């Protein structure tokens, strides 16, 4: 043990175990988390060969694929079903790789669960869980991102043989970026503009098989591939997809909420926003995920700052620990506080989602607007703080922070996509603003409003009562 770090631990005025329990919701959860992490760390199969940074992209992809398939089966054998507990195991087992099947388990399966009919769930979910179907969520197009209504991919209903015909009519309409789409997946949920009885009916989800289940070769009319190396996520085959007159049966449209009948009659959902659930769910979890990224960077930078000594404070004296410089503290400690703030806020957002989700399932959408706005805003706020914070942590590690050996560049490239995926952050903030402006007349009138926003009607002429004690 480094003597400086040992000394730091001796001088602490509190018991870190209590804080760990608070972060992970009690000692029992901490125990489970450690058990799963240790199981992964001690597993011989998961002890990697050379460090990931020295591997080629293909080696990274293959290693990640091997590890994550192994871990999925192992977790099933152990009977671990809770997504958070599975994540703890996977994070310890293959921390340096992005899961090539992340979209399969994180978006494809949950979307079928939430938006599929009973028959669709019975047909696809067992195959998906046993990896006969490996799917992804194909929403983003080369020329279209957060503005979903602008997607160009079409699904035209042909009542003569009760099929949808899917097309990518332009280069910009090609699906671009979905994780696992390039080489791993054999099917996907495609977001496309539904056209039936000659009318556009808005964006809907369609189950499309893109590769043969036995040979893994492309289905007729399908062209897909990997989009090449990125800033990070290089163990993942983020892909492109071009659809040319691809025919799928009517039953392949996810029809829990809106439907197309055999004759082409369109039955709209009871509420247009009912399908927002998955999106809100993902955004709520991004907040905790951002906290995880920032906290890891803080662990690295703060421990290193206690070990690293630089420059004698007085001539001829010993070099000081860099954590003792006030400027270093000013860079790091607010970030440490931010990591805690984001952890607790993420936990709150997840709990709030769970609470509202059951109301949504029951058809009560009253709180959906509030939840949608809160999650959009927190997603943006936390990912900005995380990305900027990791960069500051890198700078706090001097020259070594630039090396992959520090672990910080990997964290940065792993977490910074959060600023643009699942909704570009400025767009997210404008969604919050739209929500706030919508309720602003009620705020001014003193009408009934949610507790989250009650303070917005406060008297603006008031001044702070802060005293020297703060």
């Amino acid at each position, binding site marked *: 043990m*480094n003597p400086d770090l040992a000394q730091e631990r001796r001088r602490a005025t509190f018991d870190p175990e209590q804080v760990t329990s608070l972060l992970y919701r009690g000692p029992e959860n901490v125990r489970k988390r*450690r058990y799963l992490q240790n199981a992964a760390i001690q597993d011989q199969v998961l002890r990697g060969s050379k460090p990931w940074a020295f591997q080629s992209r293909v080696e990274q992809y293959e290693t990640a694929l091997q590890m994550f398939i192994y871990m999925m089966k192992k977790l099933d054998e152990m009977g671990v079903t809770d997504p958070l507990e599975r994540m703890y195991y996977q994070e310890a087992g293959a921390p340096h790789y992005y899961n090539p099947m992340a979209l399969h388990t994180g978006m494809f399966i949950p979307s079928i669960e939430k938006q599929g009919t009973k028959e669709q769930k019975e047909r696809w979910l067992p195959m998906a869980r046993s990896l006969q179907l490996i799917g992804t969520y194909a929403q983003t197009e080369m020329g279209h991102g957060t503005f979903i209504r602008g997607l160009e991919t079409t699904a035209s209903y042909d009542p003569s043989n009760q099929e949808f015909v899917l097309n990518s009519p332009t280069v910009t309409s090609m699906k671009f970026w979905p994780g696992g789409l390039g080489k791993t997946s054999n099917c996907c949920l495609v977001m496309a503009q539904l056209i039936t009885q000659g009318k556009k009916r808005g964006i809907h989800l369609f189950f499309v098989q893109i590769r043969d289940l036995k040979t893994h070769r492309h289905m007729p009319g399908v062209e897909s591939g990997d989009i090449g190396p990125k800033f990070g996520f290089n163990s993942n085959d983020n892909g492109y997809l071009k659809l040319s007159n691809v025919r799928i049966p009517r039953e392949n449209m996810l029809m829990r909420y809106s439907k197309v009948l055999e004759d082409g009659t369109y039955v709209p959902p009871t509420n247009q926003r009912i399908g927002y659930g998955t999106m809100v769910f993902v955004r709520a979890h991004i907040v905790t995920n951002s906290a995880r990224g920032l906290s890891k960077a803080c662990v690295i930078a703060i421990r290193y700052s206690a070990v690293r000594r630089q420059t004698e404070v007085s001539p001829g004296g010993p070099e000081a620990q860099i*954590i003792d410089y006030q400027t270093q503290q000013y860079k790091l400690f607010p970030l*440490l506080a931010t990591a805690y703030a984001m952890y607790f806020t993420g936990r709150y957002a997840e709990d709030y989602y769970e609470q509202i989700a059951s109301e949504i399932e029951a058809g009560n959408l009253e709180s959906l607007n509030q939840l949608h706005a809160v999650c959009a*805003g927190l997603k943006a706020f936390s990912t900005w703080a995380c990305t900027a914070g990791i960069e500051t942590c890198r700078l706090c590690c001097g020259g070594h922070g630039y090396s992959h050996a*520090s672990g910080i560049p990997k964290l940065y490239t792993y977490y910074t996509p959060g600023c643009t995926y699942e909704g570009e952050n400025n767009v997210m903030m404008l969604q919050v603003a739209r929500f706030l*402006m919508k309720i602003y007349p009620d705020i001014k009138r003193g009408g009934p409003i949610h507790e989250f926003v009650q303070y917005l009607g406060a008297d603006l002429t008031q001044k702070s009562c802060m005293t020297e004690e703060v």
Partner: protein
Amino acid sequence: ALGCLLKAFQHRAARLLSDAAARIENLVRSGKSRQEAWDASTVALTWAAKAYCHTFVVRTFSQIVSDAAVDKSTKDVLTALCKLYAIDGIIENLGEFIEDGFFSPHQVSFLKNKLADLLAEIRPNAVALVDAFDYPDKTLDSCLGRYDGQVYPALYEYAKNSPFNEQEVLDSYHKFIKPAQTE
């Protein structure tokens, strides 16, 4: 004290929202459509939205710390951290907090002094606070962030993994450097 800091965030969010709404109304009164007025106010709207989110985070943090079932010494450390988050948030966005005179110059000095005090207060607990995140070394995958602090031997071991070090003299030396030296 946390309540007093939270009030500052609430005031800022309410004021920025009111400013954005007033801007839109003024533009509408001057003849722009609602949509044009919105489009011409998106920066102000973004400020208001960020302030709303920031307030939400401060509120949640202070609420969870206040409700936490931990002993006094742990609560004191978490409270200091929460205060630091709030005060740093104010100082980093000071313009938005003083634009309407909500804080006086005196109060801003109090905040700056408190910031320095909190840095010193948190200093002895900084390593224990990051230990509390409880990340195993394998998860961090960092030579610098190791639990045992053996940073420099770890950097040396890591360097040895570089494929460049598999050969004492690289082929590229014979292909490019040597000919250049001969010429």
